[in-house]
Every structure is written in C-alpha cells, then in structure tokens.
C-alpha cells in the first residue's frame, strides 16, 4: 500500500484547478479573434467542452486511457464510470496521491484538447455536429493516444517516447486534427476576399495570460508531486513562453509593427513547445525551445495562408507544429541531470532518443489526422458540418444560439 503525501495531493488539486481554468481561458483566447457576430459561439465551443468531456471522461474516457492495457493499444474497462478509482493511490499512475486525484487531473487534459481543435471550426460549424464530433474524437483519438503515450503498457511509452505534459498527446493530436477537419469543413464565406478582423484583441490577451498561468499547473502538475521536478517544469515553462513571446514580437515587427495579437500568440506557442520537454530539459534549453518555436509557428501560419486553407485560428500552426517541434526538441535537449527517470537526448549523447521521438510524432500525426479526416467525412455525409450560408452570414451567435454578445 502506497502512502498518500498531503503536499503532493494539495499540489495536484491546485494544478487540476489551474488546468481546468485553461479551457475557459482558451474560450477568451479564441473568442477575441473572431468577428463580433460569432463571439459567443466561439467562446461556447470551448466552454461546453468542459461539460461534455467531463462526463465522457468519468463514464468511459478515463478507463480507455488509463485502464489495464489491452495489447498496448487501449485501456480495459476496469475503471468504467470511475469504478475502482478512489482515495487509495494507484502505484502505476501516481503513487503518492489518491487515484481519484490523478483521474481528475487527467480529465482536465482530456477537456482542453478537443477544445483546442475548435479554433478550426469557428464562424461556420453546426453546433450539433460539433457536439457529436467532440465526444467521438475524445473517444477515438484522444483516449487511445493518451493510452499509447502515458498508459502503463502503452505502445509508445514502451518504445521510450518522452512526453512530459502532452506535447504529443494534447498538442499534436489537436493541431493535426484541426488541419484534417478544416480540409473537410471548407472555408468561411468570403474567406480571403473580405477582411475577417479579430473583434476583441484584449479578450485574446486576457485568455493568453490565463493560459500562461494555467500552464504552470499543466506542466508543473505533470510531475505528479510537489517536488524539484515540478519546479523545474514551472521554470522551463515560463522561460519558453517568454522567449517565444519576445521572438514573435521581433518577427511581426520586421513584417510591420510589433503586433499584440502576435506577441500573445508567441507566448502560447512557447508554452505548447515546452510542454513535452518541461520536466526533461534545463531552463537554458527552454530558451532555445521557445525561441525557435516562434518562427516555426509564424511561418507555418504564412504557409497555411499560402495554401488558401481556412484553418481559421491556426491550431495546426500553433499547436500541431509547436507540439511537433517540442516533441523533437525533447529528443535533442532531454537530460537525466534534470530528470533521472527520463532519458538523455541527442545533445547529451543519445541519438536514439531523437529517433524514438521522431517515430512517435509520425505515428501520432498519422493517426490523429487520419481518424479525424474520416470522422469529419462521415459526419459531413450524415448530418453536415456547416450551417447554411444565410446562417453563416447572420452569424452563429444569433443563428445557433439565439443570443448576441453585446446589446
């Protein structure tokens, strides 16, 4: 029987609250970037995901992700409806906190990941379709990948893949799923012809600030204990966000002026990139990881624009590419000096880790993109992904919710 550590448990409860806050924060981050007529709709895509996936996770998600491994591919039904998940620790997941605390903490990750994808849907998605997609996606993409990477006996964990807090599980799956969904969904009406101005950049800044704060729980909590490793994760997280925000500022300055929307986007991209690495790398490495994440996502946005693809809020460029860079960078900068339970990366004499990270990235990208593409195609045929043209022109706040953001 493992002993519960009250300090660890307190920290994980706080971290759970911090990560929970990130999804409403994401609602603001996304909401500010759309037109006024779709502000509530966009905010709601994130907010309702807290409701939907909380239920999905309790009922089936947790057991699919963290139940006893079935051939490394999916969890068994041991924890269906959170049965057998209680106040006692589970040695496999987190030996010093109640098993229920671990499952609640992980729930918040399962929630924010599909909410991230919603950035690709904004201003045109049919709400009913969104609800169905989100539950299916959590069940058929998130839960399996979480099992592969984090579950005991998961195939990618067995391979030796390092993903401290979800660069692969959260950001790569969300980013590449957003890309696939946007390809099936199609452009917003007048995309590329009429300007689609962000209606409230201060809301986006507020969201980014709360995301930054919440990320201390996201990455720091992933140590699953109140210890030096958690501190390392918090410091690398802050450092990478800072480096990416400053780098993005200079990039946008060179193109025009130091855009505030750009600076806060940079911060988020830095947070994304450090996520898989936070508990494996040093603060100095975090500067490089954050500093390079900015140009990678910056030019990925411009590439996406060149493709003429309306992946509206650049979930792929920011989360998909930021997460990919972070996962690969973990294979470069990881060191056992920071985390003896981790591994050394290429720069610490272990090129094998970089190969493992690359393989993991490729597998997860292919899976997330492929399953999402098929899901989107099926839903498109079954109930349709988009509102009507007229509903889209009126705006989703009125046409889907019968409300407006401002009177």
């Amino acid at each position: 029987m493992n002993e519960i550590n009250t300090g660890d448990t307190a920290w994980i409860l706080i971290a759970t609250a911090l990560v929970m806050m990130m999804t409403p924060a994401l609602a603001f981050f996304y909401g500010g970037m759309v037109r006024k007529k779709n502000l509530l709709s966009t905010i709601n895509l994130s907010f309702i995901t807290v409701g939907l996936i909380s239920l999905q996770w309790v009922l089936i998600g947790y057991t699919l992700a963290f139940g006893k491994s079935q051939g490394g591919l999916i969890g068994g039904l041991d924890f269906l409806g959170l049965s057998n998940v209680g106040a006692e620790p589970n040695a496999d997941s987190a030996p010093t906190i109640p098993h229920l605390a671990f499952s609640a903490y992980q729930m918040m990750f399962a929630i924010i990941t599909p909410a991230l994808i919603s950035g690709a849907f904004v201003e045109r998605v049919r709400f009913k379709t969104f609800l169905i997609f989100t539950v299916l996606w959590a069940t058929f993409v998130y839960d399996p990948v979480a099992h592969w990477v984090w579950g005991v006996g998961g195939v990618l964990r067995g391979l030796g893949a390092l993903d401290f807090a979800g660069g692969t599980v959260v950001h790569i799956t969300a980013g590449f799923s957003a890309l696939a969904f946007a390809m099936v969904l199609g452009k917003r009406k007048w995309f590329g012809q009429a300007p689609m101005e962000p209606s409230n950049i201060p809301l986006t800044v507020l969201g980014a600030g709360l995301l930054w704060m919440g990320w201390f729980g996201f990455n720091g909590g992933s140590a699953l204990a109140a210890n030096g490793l958690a501190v390392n994760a918090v410091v690398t997280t802050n450092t990478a966000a800072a480096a990416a925000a400053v780098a993005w500022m200079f990039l946008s300055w060179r193109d025009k002026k130091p855009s505030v929307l750009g600076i806060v986007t940079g911060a988020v991209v830095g947070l994304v990139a450090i996520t898989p690495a936070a508990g494996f790398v040093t603060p100095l490495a975090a500067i490089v990881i954050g500093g390079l994440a900015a140009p990678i996502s910056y030019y990925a946005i411009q590439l996406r624009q060149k493709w003429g693809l309306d992946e509206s809020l650049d979930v792929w460029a920011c989360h998909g590419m930021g997460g990919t860079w972070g996962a690969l960078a973990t294979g470069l900068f990881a060191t056992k000096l920071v985390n003896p339970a981790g591994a050394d990366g290429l720069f610490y004499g272990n090129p094998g880790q970089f190969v493992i990270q690359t393989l993991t990235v490729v597998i997860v990208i292919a899976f997330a993109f492929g399953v999402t593409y098929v899901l989107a195609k099926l839903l498109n045929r079954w109930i349709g992904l988009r509102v009507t043209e007229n509903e889209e022109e009126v705006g989703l706040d009125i046409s889907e919710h019968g409300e407006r953001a401002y009177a």
Partner: protein
Amino acid sequence: MTKKIEAIFREEKLHMVKEALYGIGIIGMNVIEVRGHGRQGGVELAGRTGTYRVDFLPRVQLNIILSDHNVEKTIETIQQAAQTGNIGDGLIFVYPVEEVIRIRTSEHGHDALTYEGDIDTREEVRLQAAD
C-alpha cells in the same frame, strides 16, 4: 435660410474640431461614428503574422444645423481643425434644410435654432449694430 453641415473627418480630430467650433460660438452639434473610405481605399494593419487589409476606416460624421450666414466661417473652422494634410482627411457637405421644429417649444424655422448667446443671435446683434 437654414443649412446642414455634414463633416466627415478623422475621429482623433473630434475634440479639436469641437473646441474650435465652441470658439466661434457653435454650441449645438451631434456626432455619428461612421466607417468608410474615399478614393484612397483602406489601410494595412498588423496581424498575427504579417498584415491584413481593412477597407472601412473609422471616421466621425459631425452634423450642424445653422443659418446661412454662418456656413462659410464654420466650414473654415472645421477644415482648419480637422486637417492633417494626409490622404483620408475627409469631406464636408452642405445641404439646404427645409424645416426645423424644436420639440420642447414647437418653435419653427430660424426661431427654433436661435437662443441667447449662440452664434446666430450674436451675429444678428453684430449685423444690426453695423447697420
């Protein structure tokens, strides 16, 4: 005769235009926020990356109803206060006004526009004195 002056200019100039109009005794006015462009088209703003084009730029439309003999001076005042010399400074339109009714007093026409100390009464006093 009564005229309406409709001046569309940069929103940041509103305060200076208002002060200048107060200076010549124009007190009554109202303002509408408008968006638009003339021949120069829109502007480029900084986006998340690079720039994007905005066609409709914010301007204010100032409306003043006044007597004929004040029109020239008022136009000059607005023009001086609103001018930057750059493209996009705006335009001033003058229209004839058929009728004015003050809701409180039911006064019509010129009477509805004049009150103690405003530009019209002051001008009339000055013109009478000159006679």
